[in-house]
């Protein structure tokens, strides 16, 4: 079943076309990679899907419903969650709280907000919910292997742990489609290997569809089932890892730049 459909989306900033006419289909359960040199427009694609930017042209569908131009929190509640390339955790909150915040929309959206608001202020019938959210959060932290840090301030975590927490937090929203923006950036080799394992595991155990942006080619090639390559905002190649790896256009786009990192 088709989960995500991008139809010719374009994003212009003044004269600069950051993303031009990109189309894409992702099916349920897929692990899809979005790669390309720095400044190719990958993060911008994410920003358009999650509603942080409104596309200049084109349409976006999630589970066959159009979501173009909806506000970000609405899109998250529909089932798309993301991580940020330049980590955006709630620094002054603990690791556990970060994950619990992501569940908050389950009691604050729609008509039930008033009821839960009164329950929270009066503390009548609230503690059950709090405990439930806490358990779910601890469980997710366990899945990502950072449950030991639950009570630390998230700002004090190592880079790698922060990236993992971003993933846990995105999962806690209950989304079925995860968008991961360079999840391995700043990790060392063993952390990266562990991450590949974890991403595969959460995809299987939680029935997720994953779209990920990555710079580390080894990771993408080993992990993703399908890959799309962007350069200067345009799609230059799409297919399975083996195909993309041999595509002349891709090699040209990366030559002298990050292609070198493959051999690393």
């Amino acid at each position, binding site marked *: 079943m088709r989960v995500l459909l991008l139809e010719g989306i374009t994003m212009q*900033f003044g004269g600069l076309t950051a993303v031009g006419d990109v189309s894409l289909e992702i099916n349920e359960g897929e692990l899809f990679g979005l790669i390309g040199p720095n400044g190719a427009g990958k*993060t911008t694609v994410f*920003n358009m899907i999650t509603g*942080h*930017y409104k596309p200049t042209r084109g349409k976006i569908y999630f589970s066959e419903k159009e979501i173009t131009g909806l506000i970000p929190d609405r899109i998250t509640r529909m089932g798309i969650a993301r991580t*940020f390339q330049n980590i955006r955790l709630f620094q002054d909150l603990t690791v556990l709280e970060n994950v619990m915040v992501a569940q908050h929309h389950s009691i604050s959206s729609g008509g039930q907000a008033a009821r839960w608001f009164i329950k929270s202020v009066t503390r009548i019938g609230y503690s059950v919910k709090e405990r439930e959210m806490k358990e779910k959060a601890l469980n997710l932290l366990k899945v990502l292997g950072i449950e030991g840090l639950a009570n630390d301030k998230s700002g004090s975590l190592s880079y790698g742990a922060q990236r993992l927490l971003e993933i846990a937090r995105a999962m806690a929203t209950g989304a079925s489609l995860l968008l991961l923006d360079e999840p391995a950036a700043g990790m060392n080799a063993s952390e990266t290997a562990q991450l590949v394992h974890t991403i595969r595991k959460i995809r299987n155990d939680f029935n997720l569809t994953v779209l990920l942006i990555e710079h580390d080619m080894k990771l993408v090639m080993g992990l993703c089932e399908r890959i799309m390559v962007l350069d200067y905002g345009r799609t230059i190649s799409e297919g399975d890892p083996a195909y993309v790896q041999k595509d002349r256009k891709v090699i040209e786009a990366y030559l002298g730049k990050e292609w070198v990192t493959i051999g690393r």
Partner: protein
Amino acid sequence: MDPKTLLQNFVNGLSLGSLYALIAIGYTMVYGILRLINFAHGDIFMMAAYFTFFFVTLTQLPWYFAAIFAIASAAVLGFGVDRIAYKPIRKAPRISALITAIGVSFFLESLAVVIFSGIPRSFRTIFPQFLNEMIILGGHMEVKYGQEVILGGIRFPIISVVTLIVTAVAIVFLWWFIYKTKIGMAMRSVSVDIPTTSLMGVNVDRIIGMTFALGSALAGVGGILWAVRYPQVWPYMGFIPGMKAFVAAVFGGIGSVPGAVMGGLILGITEVMMVGLFPGAAGYRDAFAFFILIIILSVKPSGLLGKPELVKV
């Protein structure tokens, strides 16, 4: 409104607006560089009026010495405020800077209360009397300050015309300074990109200080003219004009000097016109500016000439 009253109101509105513009320039320049609403700006305006008053009273020298002294002191004060209060917290969150600015504003106001006392003082004897006389076009009667006019003819106080001329000169000077001098160039460069400018060997803190001084000097000019127009000085005289000038700066597009001038003039004219059209609403004239502010902020926060800011994710 008959054409005569209309013209009268127009001239008065224009001169009030040019005072707003003079203050608004300081807000807009500082905001353009530091993204800081310098709350204390209106109080520097007030201080300049007091400096003039006491200089004349204490030294008995002619008013133009006093004016020069007050404008220079305002510049030094603006520079000092930046050095002492804002510079230590340049790296702090933007909101801390705003809170500090509010504190500085109250500090200057209470300082004025302590030094000059909270009682309003008449400014009428400080400047030559003729400024507050009326010009009458189409009539031939001279009217002293505060007297009623029964005769026809378009009338407005001389100070309105003087204000317009002084403002025009100040703006030409500012334009020359920003576009034709090295410091002005550095100011423009700092407002675009602080790190790059400092890499090019410019002492950014000095340029920021100069910006405060320049903006404060203009506010000083405005303060003196204001005190002549409503001939009195008191410690809280800066609050309302300061707020309105801020509204003017936002209206014109904060960060843009031509925008501040335009916003000031439009605000002054509409305010006077509104009171002219609905004399019953005169008590609400100060609320009017805030209404405009809220409408602009909700409809087009970037103002007439400002560029919208995109939040990068």
